[in-house]
Each structure stands twice: as structure tokens, then as C-alpha cells.
């Protein structure tokens, strides 16, 4: 029964992950697992010092835990499900003895919980490192999704010759865009490490490390479903060996915080003495709900977390944040808040239509690990897509309508004339103009040639020009964070209007250029250029648009 529920939950988690793409309907909360995770919400609220509506979903899980107990770990958690399913596959033959350090190790999860919460209080978000839902979503995005698509395409390639011969055109033409990400190996290795720890003890991760489990265990002893052992218990210890959480104590005792109600012990008991009856009362008197962490341990963790959070901010990355900005997704909060609110789940990068959203490594320091940035030389931000905000569980990227998103200016294109084919080599290249969805590239006649220039008030930084620029190596036109609009609240359309930006280009643009025929350029030209070698070539170029003789 439990395995079926777990499998269903894992399937749902995987399905919602798969559905996170640009076609996502507004009503479907694909990030629901992340929203339900109270630890992510808590940390983002603490670190960002602002209430997040979607984080309130976490209260649902807290409430359910108070009502029922720590069932989440045994039935709902997709990482728990994966560890449970892999355990018999990987460690069936492994003889695992009870760890001597069990009691001490069990406290580690409280240390991580306190450490990360304290760091959040100090203004640094680190909880994503070990939060199971964030970690698993991230693993799915960077570690599993790309190889999955790769394998599917490989299979399709294998059957393609046959399909072509049989004229099964649907199969013959089928191929999926291969997603690629930075940091996919490291993300997968961390996940592999967590699985490998299962060699030491079943659910090693859940027992000893998981900060979400630690948080839930603070409430679970209040749950009404509690493990009871009959008074006839001969203390055979079989349930203790079977319990994947180390929750069964000697002589029929139970550690209420550790028990995840998986009922493995019920099956293990030879005398059927174990039951999980619904108790009408709160915690029976005398039973403790507190973790074993000592006051000293608590204080050390607290101090460590605050210190760590504080120290992370004491680096040049912090003061440089306003100057060396990365190109963040449209609708991303102002950089400081963005870093504290983003939980690095990778959902935005998974759903990104063009794959331009990539995890940062060290570009924003320790505070920016795995945060999304745009890799515009690789792919552009599609103006008809606004999925990254829709799937963001903490709204570090605000969910915006397409109209609003269009006005969330990412930056401004900067033309590097020394590299531009037209400026530097007088070639006939107009790709940036051709591709620009906002008509922000105009041509001006300079030195007898029509040369591209950027109208910054029309450029919203989508990066199509940077991606498509045919110059080898770095692009001759790059998006700099100049003029980016990052709002915590309020309308981007209104802000853009205030700044006199116009992302709905004027259709008469090219005509305007033709009519003016570089009027202002001519006199300057003659001043700076003493020779008149070039001008003869100019008339035809100035009178007629490109491509005509």
C-alpha cells in the first residue's frame, strides 16, 4: 500500500516536472511540491524578509503533520520514494549494522535545519543545498532531464532508417530539442552521493541529514496517528532492525519525532503487537517531542548559521551586485532579494522554452550558486513565453502576463563596432536587424555604408541579436544589463512608460531611415574624412535600400 502511494506521488512529481514548459496553463501549479515544502517557504521568507503568497502552501503540510504525523517522509516525499525504491536494488546484499553514532548523527539534521534557518535570518539563502524537494527538482532538471531526452533521441535515431524506409513520417521526422545545462554533472554527483549513503543505513539521508524531515519532526509528535506496542512485547528487537528511520527504541518505545508511520515495523513484528491507532488526545504526558539536540548544540548551530550567512555577504560580490549584474530572467526581483528568495530548484531552467536559462556557478559568488541567468550567446529569451515566472515557487521570478513580461527589460544590446562585420569589414550583414523582434536595430548611413545601430529605448534585451550574430567567437552585439528593469512590486508596463521605452516598434522605421538618408551624417563625414575616395560609392547605397541595384 505504502509503496503504491509513494510510486503515485513520485509519478505525480515527475509528471508535473514534465509539464513545466511554455505551454503551461495558468491554473496548473506544477511547482506544487515546492510550494508545499514549508522549509523552502520559511527560508525564503526569512532571508527575503517579505511574505510570499505561494509559500503559505507550506502551512498545509505543517497542518497535516500536526494532525497526522510525519507521514510526508514515508508517503509523499519523492526523494524518500526514490531512496526506498533504490534501496533493495542497490543494497540487497549489503549487511548494514546499526551505526554506533546513530544518536549523534540523528542530530545532524537539526544542525542543518538550524544552520540554514539562522543563515536565512542573517540574509543568506542556503537551505536549497539540502532541502530534498529543491535538491530533487534540481537533479531532475540538470542531471536527469538532459540524458533522458538524449536517450529518447538516440532511440528515435535508431529506428529512423526503418521509419524512413516504411514512410512512417511521424516517427521519421521526430526528434526532441536536446536540453543542455551547466553544472549537470556536479548536481547529479550530489544526488548520487545521497543515494550511496544508503549503504551505511537505510534512508541515511532522511534519518540524519534532511532538514525538511527535521522541521517536520518538530511537529509530528503532535500527530494523532501514533505507534503503540502491546505490553506483551518481548523486546526481540526485530522492529528496531527493520525500522528504516531508527525510530523504534528498546522495549517497545518510539521516538515520536523520527517515526514516519511507514508501518514497516508492523510487518516485522512476529506477534502482531504493533499498531497505529488514531489517538484522540495530544501527546501523552511524559513523552518528549523535543529533538535530542543539546542547548549547546543548538546555540553553536545558530551561531554558525548566522556567522556563515553574515560571512557570505562580506565579499566583493555583495557591493558589486549593483554593477556586475548577470542577465536575470524577466521579472526577477532586484538582485539582492532575488538571491535570498531563489531556492535553486531549477524549475525555471527546466521550463525555459529556448534553454537560455542556465545555472550560475561562481558568477555571483556563493550566494548565487545555481541561480538562473541568461546565456544569450547560446539562446535568446523568447518574447512569446513567460513560463519562468509561472513556475517559480517563491516568486523570485515574478509571474507576469506576456504584456508585462515584454516590458521587464533584461538589458540593452551594445554593438561592438570593432567586431561587427558591417562596421569593421563593410560586409552586407543585417542579421541582428532581421531577427530583432522589437525593431531596435536601425541602419544609418555612415561613410557611405548603411551601418547598424541600437535604439536603446526599443531594446528589451531579449538577446536574439547576440545569439544570431554570425561573427565567430564572441558576439559583436551583446546584451549588457544597462537599463534593466527589476521591480519588487508594481507594473513593468507603467515603469517602461515612465522611462519612455517602447517595445511595440513603429512599423515605419525603415522608411524613416530612407527618407532621412543619413542627412545628419554627411557633413560630419566630410569633416572627419579628408579624402573623397569613398563617397562616390555612397549615392546608390544611400538612395536605395539594401539588396536593390
Amino acid at each position: 500500500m505504502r509503496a503504491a502511494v509513494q510510486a503515485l506521488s513520485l509519478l505525480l512529481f515527475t509528471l508535473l516536472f514534465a509539464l513545466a514548459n511554455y505551454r503551461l496553463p495558468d491554473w496548473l501549479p506544477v511547482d506544487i511540491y515546492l510550494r508545499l515544502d514549508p522549509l523552502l517557504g520559511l527560508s525564503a521568507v526569512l532571508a527575503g524578509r517579505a511574505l510570499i503568497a505561494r509559500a503559505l502552501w507550506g502551512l498545509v503540510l505543517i497542518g497535516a503533520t500536526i494532525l497526522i504525523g510525519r507521514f510526508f517522509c514515508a508517503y509523499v516525499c519523492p526523494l524518500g520514494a526514490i531512496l526506498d525504491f533504490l534501496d533493495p536494488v542497490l543494497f540487497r546484499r549489503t549487511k548494514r549494522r546499526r551505526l554506533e553514532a546513530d544518536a549523534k548523527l540523528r542530530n545532524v539534521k537539526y544542525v542543518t535545519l538550524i544552520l540554514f534557518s539562522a543563515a536565512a535570518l542573517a540574509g543568506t539563502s542556503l537551505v536549497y543545498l539540502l532541502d530534498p524537494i529543491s535538491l530533487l527538482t534540481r537533479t531532475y532538471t540538470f542531471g536527469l532531464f538532459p540524458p533522458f531526452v538524449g536517450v529518447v533521441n538516440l532511440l528515435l535515431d535508431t529506428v529512423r532508417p526503418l521509419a524512413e524506409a516504411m514512410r512512417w513520417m511521424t516517427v521519421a521526422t521526430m526528434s526532441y530539442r536536446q536540453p543542455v545545462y551547466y553544472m549537470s554533472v556536479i548536481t547529479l554527483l550530489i544526488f548520487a552521493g545521497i543515494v550511496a549513503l544508503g549503504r551505511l543505513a537505510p534512508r541515511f539521508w532522511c534519518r540524519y541529514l534532511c532538514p525538511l524531515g527535521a522541521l517536520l519532526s518538530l511537529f509530528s509528535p503532535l500527530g494523532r496517528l501514533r505507534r503503540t506496542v502491546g505490553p506483551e512485547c518481548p523486546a526481540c528487537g526485530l522492529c528496531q532492525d527493520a525500522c528504516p528511520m531508527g525510530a523504534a527504541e528498546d522495549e517497545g518505545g518510539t521516538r515520536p519525532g523520527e517515526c514516519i508511520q511507514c508501518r514497516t515495523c508492523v510487518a516485522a513484528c512476529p506477534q502482531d503487537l504493533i499498531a497505529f491507532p488514531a489517538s484522540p488526545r495530544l501527546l501523552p504526558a511524559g513523552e518528549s517531542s523535543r529533538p535530542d539536540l543539546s542547548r549547546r548544540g543548538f546555540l553553536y548551530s545558530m551561531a554558525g548559521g548566522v556567522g556563515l550567512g553574515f560571512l557570505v555577504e562580506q565579499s566583493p560580490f555583495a557591493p558589486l551586485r549593483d554593477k556586475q549584474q548577470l542577465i536575470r530572467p524577466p521579472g526577477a526581483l532586484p538582485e539582492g532579494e532575488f538571491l535570498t528568495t531563489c531556492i535553486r530548484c531549477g524549475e525555471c531552467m527546466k521550463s525555459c522554452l529556448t534553454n537560455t536559462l542556465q545555472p550560475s556557478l561562481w558568477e555571483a559568488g556563493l550566494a548565487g550558486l545555481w541561480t538562473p541567468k541568461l546565456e544569450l550567446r547560446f539562446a535568446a529569451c523568447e518574447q512569446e513565453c513567460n513560463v519562468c515566472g509561472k513556475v517559480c515557487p517563491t516568486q523570485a521570478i515574478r509571474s507576469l502576463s506576456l504584456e508585462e513580461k515584454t516590458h521587464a527589460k533584461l538589458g540593452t544590446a551594445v554593438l561592438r563596432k570593432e567586431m561587427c562585420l558591417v562596421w569593421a569589414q563593410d560586409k552586407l550583414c543585417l542579421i541582428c536587424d532581421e531577427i530583432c523582434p522589437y525593431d531596435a536595430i536601425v541602419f544609418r548611413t555612415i561613410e557611405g555604408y548603411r551601418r547598424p545601430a541600437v535604439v536603446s529605448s526599443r531594446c528589451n534585451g531579449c538577446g536574439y541579436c547576440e545569439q544570431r550574430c554570425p561573427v565567430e567567437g564572441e558576439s559583436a552585439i551583446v546584451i549588457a544589463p544597462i537599463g534593466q528593469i527589476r521591480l519588487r512590486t508594481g507594473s513593468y508596463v507603467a515603469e517602461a512608460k515612465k522611462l519612455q521605452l517602447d517595445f511595440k516598434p513603429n512599423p515605419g522605421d525603415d522608411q524613416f531611415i530612407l527618407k532621412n538618408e543619413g542627412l545628419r551624417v554627411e557633413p560630419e563625414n566630410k569633416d572627419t574624412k579628408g579624402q573623397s575616395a569613398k563617397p562616390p560609392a555612397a549615392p546608390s547605397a544611400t538612395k536605395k535600400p539594401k539588396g536593390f541595384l
Partner: protein
Amino acid sequence: MSDSHGMTRRDLLRGAAAGLALSVPGLPRPAGAAEPDLAVISGDPAAAARKAVEALGGMSRFVRKGQRVVLKPNMSFASGPDRASNTHPAVVYAVAQMCLEAGAEQVMILDNPLQSAELCLRRAGVSDACKNLKNVYVRMFTDHKFFREIRVPQGKVLDRVEVIKEVLDSPVLISLPQAKSHSATGISMGVKGLMGLIWDRGSFHSKHNINQALADLATVLRPKLTVLDATRALTTGGPGGPGEIIKPNLVIAGTDPIAVDSFGVSVAPWYGQQFKGRQVEHLLAASQRGLGTVDIEQLNILRATA
């Protein structure tokens, strides 16, 4: 598309046309009668496309039973027909339907998009329009594995080019361009539109003189039929728009891709100026390679309303 087909037939027909009496427009003509060089039909996109092809002798002149056909419309921008950067889906639908009626085994409607393939498929409307047609596939090829390199024996600037395999393997290519302005080549119609079938478009801009490269490409990609959608013309801001749109309400069909484009040049002012086909550098270059007639004054042009 191996090199010479299309041309010989067209020359033959033109020779025949000179000796034969003019046929009555609009009436079904007997087989072997002289077809006009160009059919210029005004009216609703679907009806005009149909009538234009019929005026040339019907689709069975180009597509035989059991053949595989590739249609190349413009659908590489994620925008609808109102933007005039893509071929009207009704034109594509009408032509695909005629191919099926002529007995085509399968019709592949292809492009290599400039924006996200998924979005282009959705917004261009071709996928939707053709979803009820059996054996018609609307596909975007963005993966290198779907391309194959061929030599360009008559190329002046282009030695080799990688083309969508399906195009190379199908006996019939029909070009369905949208009439629009183009910031690098002046206009983009049939000849320029075929650039959507190749892998490395960037090099046309960065490495080669694009107008010469287009003429080179036209020597190896030889559509049997070109149906130019000038129901709307994007006269500025092309190829992607947005820009000024006028509505000539015309569909122009012919077997000579240069002549079709050349006529297309004449139907609208481009960037506010009237041009002739000969003034478009890539059309002139292509005609100089013997690929078609750029001066259309002498051609037999049938005009009608659908």
C-alpha cells in the same frame, strides 16, 4: 532536387506556347495546350492559390501519382498572417490539398525556423490549417542530423551547402513564399525563401555576398512550381516585421522562380519605392546564371480573379 528538371519542361512549353493560340482564361484547358508563364490571380488566398495552379495546367502537371512532395512556405517567424512575415496558411493548405488530389503519396511542409520551432509551428497557423489533411506533415527541422551536404557545381561563391534531406530525397519541391521586404536582400520571395532549407544561414551573411550565394543556391534547389503569396505584402520591416503591410490580394504562380519573384517585385512599393525585378541583386544574379527570366515584360501572363 537534381539540377535540370523543370527547366527543360518550361522551355519546351514556352516554345509550344509561341506557336499555339491563346487559351481562354478561366476555362479548363485541354492537355498540351499552352499554359501561361505566370498566373496572377486576385482574390481570397485559398481560392486564388487554387485558381493560379489550375491556370498553369493543374497540379497534375507537377505532381504525379505516388510522388513525395515538399512544400516550402515561409513559416519561420512566430507570428500570424496579419504580420505578413509568413505565408498565409490558407495558401499552404490549398496547395497541399491540390497535391493530394493529384495523387501525392505524402506532402511534407518544411522550414527551418528563426525563432523557437514550437512557437513558429503554433503561431504561423500552417500546422493547424493542415491538421485534417491525411499524409500531410508540417515539420520544422532544427537538428543537424536532418541535413545533408551537397555540392554546388555551378556555384560562384558556394561550393557546398547542407540541405534538409527530405528536400533532396523528394522528387517535387514546391516553393510557397510570402512576398516581403528584406533588410539585406531587398525583397524576400521564392529565391530568398529557399534559404530556409539550408543549415548554415549565417555564412550567407558573414562569409559570402548573400545575393551571389542565393543565386548559387538557386542552381541546386529548383522548385517545380512557385506559388507566391502576395495577398499581403510586408513592404517595410521585413523579413520578420512588424512593418508596413499593403494588400495586393494576389497569388502569383509560375514554373520560373525568377519570373514569379520578378512579378512579385512589381506588385508593391518596397520601402516606399517602385522597383523592377532586374533591380533586385539576387534575382538579377540568378537570371544571369540562366535560372529564369527577370524581365517579365515579354512573358505570357494570365490575369484573373478568383
